């Protein structure tokens, strides 16, 4: 028997690591990956709760999150590729201007 | 991918586009060790993704200095060098060289020798086209065709072995005729081949010609128009696939090609598939020529009786003092040729094989230049591959039929 708190703590740790990645890394791709990690941490908590209350709603919610994440990655990576092509870099410190 | 430091760009900076310098396009070395460069050819590709911006050939890896070597040998002995030229068309090279020597010293060849020369060179043409077709199929990953083609080529090599004792480097055609008369089995061997081969050509066609994937790979790829082809000195099947009806066998008949009835296959499309079709049709035309030559093969001597240039047959040496002297003189010292130059060309499987031969009155050629068709045919590759994909480059390269021995000499 695993108390659901364990899952929640794990999820919080993973989420915090994701936040840390967004804060300290400058590579736009790794920042993007950190965001994915945070989404995953949230998903994990949702599925854990869903298991506790024995309802499918949580799983369905996670299913939607995964679908949205796929859409987000498609657009986000396209943006990063375009930024790289115009700036020759994906260092977020250098991508500060709003005009290309 | 900024990986320019791996290639020294200084030597060919003027050949690639500006985008290569900024690293926007990729430079890729194709060869000298690469399965589909048909020998040791290096192509420096400038790629945008997989689209070819520039394909710069780099040749010379097989350069053996044949022209220089031939200057150091007598006219008779220099002939063996020509076998090593285009190793897919050895008898054809011999023929070109012998015709050049015959023209330089004004030597006649008896009709039987002419007919045998025609049969052998046409057989060799089929063999060369077979290797072409096999390699072409292999480059498109139709691997069975390769083995089928080599099976048939084997039959031709057997016929060559029957005549000369050698399978590839035959040196069977000699100035003034041929080395010796063909054996009695020759005719039946060639007839067997003629009987078997048409069905095999149909088989290749069944495997390839209407295959949708093959059509997709070939039609409209690597289009070479007639004007560009002539500008680049392209000859042979590649030129004929671009709509120019130019075949030295028809235009300037030699060896009695005018007695035979055959067509010169011409396609106007100029793409890779047209080159394929021309090659396939040439199988059939060559078979026609061989059959006719075999049917009216005249009897008689196979060598000119001009003993000043042609060594006497072995049988005479034992009984004739004069023959012995001629034999000795011709093989040690050689015969003198006039101080003049000639250019003589034949139609090799790849195009116009021209020999520029200059004598200085002595027994050795003063200058031999071999105008080899693959050399000029390859020079067009950059023109016709621009804008195609790497996969197309392989098909185009295979279709223009290069032999590196022919290019580098």
């Amino acid at each position, binding site marked *: 028997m695993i108390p659901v708190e364990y899952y929640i703590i794990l999820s919080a740790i993973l989420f915090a690591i994701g936040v840390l990645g967004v804060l300290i890394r400058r590579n736009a791709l790794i920042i993007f990956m950190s965001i994915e990690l945070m989404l995953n941490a949230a998903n994990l908590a949702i599925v854990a709760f869903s298991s506790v209350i024995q309802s499918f709603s949580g799983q369905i919610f996670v299913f939607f999150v995964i679908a949205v994440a796929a859409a987000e990655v498609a657009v986000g990576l396209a943006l990063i590729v375009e930024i790289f092509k115009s700036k020759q870099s994906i260092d977020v410190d250098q991508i500060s201007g709003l005009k290309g | 991918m900024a990986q320019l430091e791996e290639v020294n760009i200084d*030597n*060919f900076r*003027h*050949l690639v586009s500006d985008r290569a310098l900024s690293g926007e396009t990729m430079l890729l070395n194709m060869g000298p060790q690469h399965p589909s460069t048909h020998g040791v050819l290096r192509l420096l590709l400038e790629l945008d993704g997989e689209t070819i911006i520039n394909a710069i050939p780099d*040749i*010379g890896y097989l*350069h053996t*200095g044949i*022209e*220089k070597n031939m200057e*150091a040998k007598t006219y008779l002995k220099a002939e063996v060098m020509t076998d090593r030229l285009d190793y897919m068309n050895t008898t054809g090279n011999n023929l070109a060289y012998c015709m050049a020597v015959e*023209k*330089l010293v*004004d030597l006649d060849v008896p009709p039987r020798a002419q007919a045998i020369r025609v049969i052998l060179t046409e057989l060799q043409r089929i063999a060369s086209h077979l290797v072409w077709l096999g390699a072409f199929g292999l480059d498109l990953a139709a691997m069975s065709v390769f083995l089928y083609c080599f099976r048939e080529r084997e039959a031709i090599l057997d016929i060559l072995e029957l005549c000369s004792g050698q399978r590839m480097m035959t040196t069977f055609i000699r100035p003034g005729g041929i080395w010796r008369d063909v054996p009695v089995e020759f005719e039946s061997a060639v007839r067997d081949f003629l009987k078997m081969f048409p069905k095999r050509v149909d088989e290749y066609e069944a495997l390839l010609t209407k295959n949708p994937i093959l059509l997709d790979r070939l039609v409209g790829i690597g289009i070479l128009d007639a004007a560009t082809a*002539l*500008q*680049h*000195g392209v*000859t042979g099947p590649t030129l004929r696939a671009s709509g*120019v009806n*130019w075949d030295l066998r028809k*235009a*300037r008949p030699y060896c009695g090609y005018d007695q035979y009835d055959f067509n010169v296959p011409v396609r106007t499309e100029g793409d890779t598939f047209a080159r394929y079709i021309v090659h396939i049709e040439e199988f059939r035309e060559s078979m026609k020529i061989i059959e006719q030559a075999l049917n009216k093969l005249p009897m008689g001597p196979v060598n000119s009786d001009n003993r000043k240039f042609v060594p006497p047959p072995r049988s005479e040496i034992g009984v004739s003092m004069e023959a012995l002297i001629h034999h000795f003189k011709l093989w040690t010292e050689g015969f003198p040729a006039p101080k*003049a*130059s*000639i*250019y003589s*060309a034949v139609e090799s499987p790849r195009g*116009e094989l*021209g020999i*520029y031969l*200059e004598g200085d009155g002595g027994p050795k050629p*003063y*200058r031999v*230049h071999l*105008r080899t068709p693959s*050399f*000029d045919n390859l*020079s067009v590759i950059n023109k016709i591959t621009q804008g195609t994909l790497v996969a197309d480059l392989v098909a185009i390269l295979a279709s223009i039929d290069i032999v590196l021995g022919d290019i*580098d*000499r």
Partner: protein
Amino acid sequence: MDKKLEPIINALQKQFDSSIEEFRDEVHAFVKPEQILDALTLLRDKYEFELLSALTAVDYFPQQSPRYHIVYQLTSLAKNLSVQLRVPVNGDQPKVPTVTRVYEVANWREREVADMFGVEFEGHPDPRRILMPDDWDGHPLRKDYPLGYEEPQFTFNFDEIDVRKPYAKE
């Protein structure tokens, strides 16, 4: 001489003052280096010599002037004719204008002649060596190019020759 060739040869003689040589039905017309571009353009455009079949050179060493003959073998597909232009070039600093603009096939052929004979083709778009390695010394088809002979290596002189052999040793 072929009847159809006569007007062409006459035009060459008139326009470029070229001398004519004939041997076994082949016609050689001599032109000066500075005229070669015009002569080839004339032959290509007016007399339909579409194909430059061969472009090579001959070295008449020890003779100094003209030491080289650059040979242009032209073929007319339309008329089924051939003619050869020869350009005598002086021995020291041999220079000929490039004909790449008239016949593109000359690009590689001229590179080959430059590689083998050291004749410079002025204005050539890609003046690299073609057959010999880039760092090669000398021009092999010149008659004064030293011929290398290699002494046969037998058991009795194996080590002696091995020392002199130019391969990489440890």
